């Protein structure tokens, strides 16, 4: 069975500082990998996804993620965080056969002035 681990429940970053959110997955093969963001009271919005090819993936809002097969990781990064980035971030994996997603437990990002 596939699973996703986001080891940090919450992270506080100063505005303008860089950000890295960790994600590790367990799956028999290389799954499809996603990062979603959930703002308070909102649904989930896709930031980026990895299917194959270049292991560094660019997404919306200045986010990027790097797939590392040897570490089973798909960490999310942003060089300079803005206050509007404060939200809950979910890493998810999807099997190659179906479009359903398995989510991690989320990381709450707090941005300090």
């Amino acid at each position, binding site marked *: 069975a596939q699973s996703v681990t986001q080891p940090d429940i919450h992270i506080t970053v100063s505005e303008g500082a860089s950000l890295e959110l960790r994600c590790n997955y367990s799956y028999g093969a290389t799954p499809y990998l996603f990062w979603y963001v959930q703002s308070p009271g909102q649904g*989930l*919005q896709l930031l980026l996804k990895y299917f194959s090819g270049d292991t560094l993936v660019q997404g919306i809002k200045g986010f990027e993620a790097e797939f590392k097969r040897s570490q089973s990781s798909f960490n999310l990064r942003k060089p300079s965080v803005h206050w509007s980035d404060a939200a809950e971030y979910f890493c998810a994996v999807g099997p*190659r056969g*179906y479009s*359903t997603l398995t989510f991690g437990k989320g990381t709450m990002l707090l941005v300090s002035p």
Partner: protein
Amino acid sequence: DTAVSQTPKYLVTQMGNDKSIKCEQNLGHDTMYWYKQDSKKFLKIMFSYNNKELIINETVPNRFSPKSPDKAHLNLHINSLELGDSAVYFCASSQDVAGGTEAFFGQGTRLTVV
């Protein structure tokens, strides 16, 4: 122009009642889903429908009955509500059922059972 819309946004009800949550997507997608987000924000797939046909049921109690009258709608009916059903329920849709297809989520329905 909401892509995936759910109603109601909030639902407070007593234990034992029956309630429904409606979901509609205007994206022309073939596949729709219900996900449950518990109090610890953990999101888990409940059901997946493709062209009105149930394709995934993730060991959800049979008090939960999804209904898809057409491929643009996937409603969730819950019988005999229990305290543990309190959660945020998200509807989502994707172009098709193939792996890796991007899912678009609604804004969620916060269900509180008292």
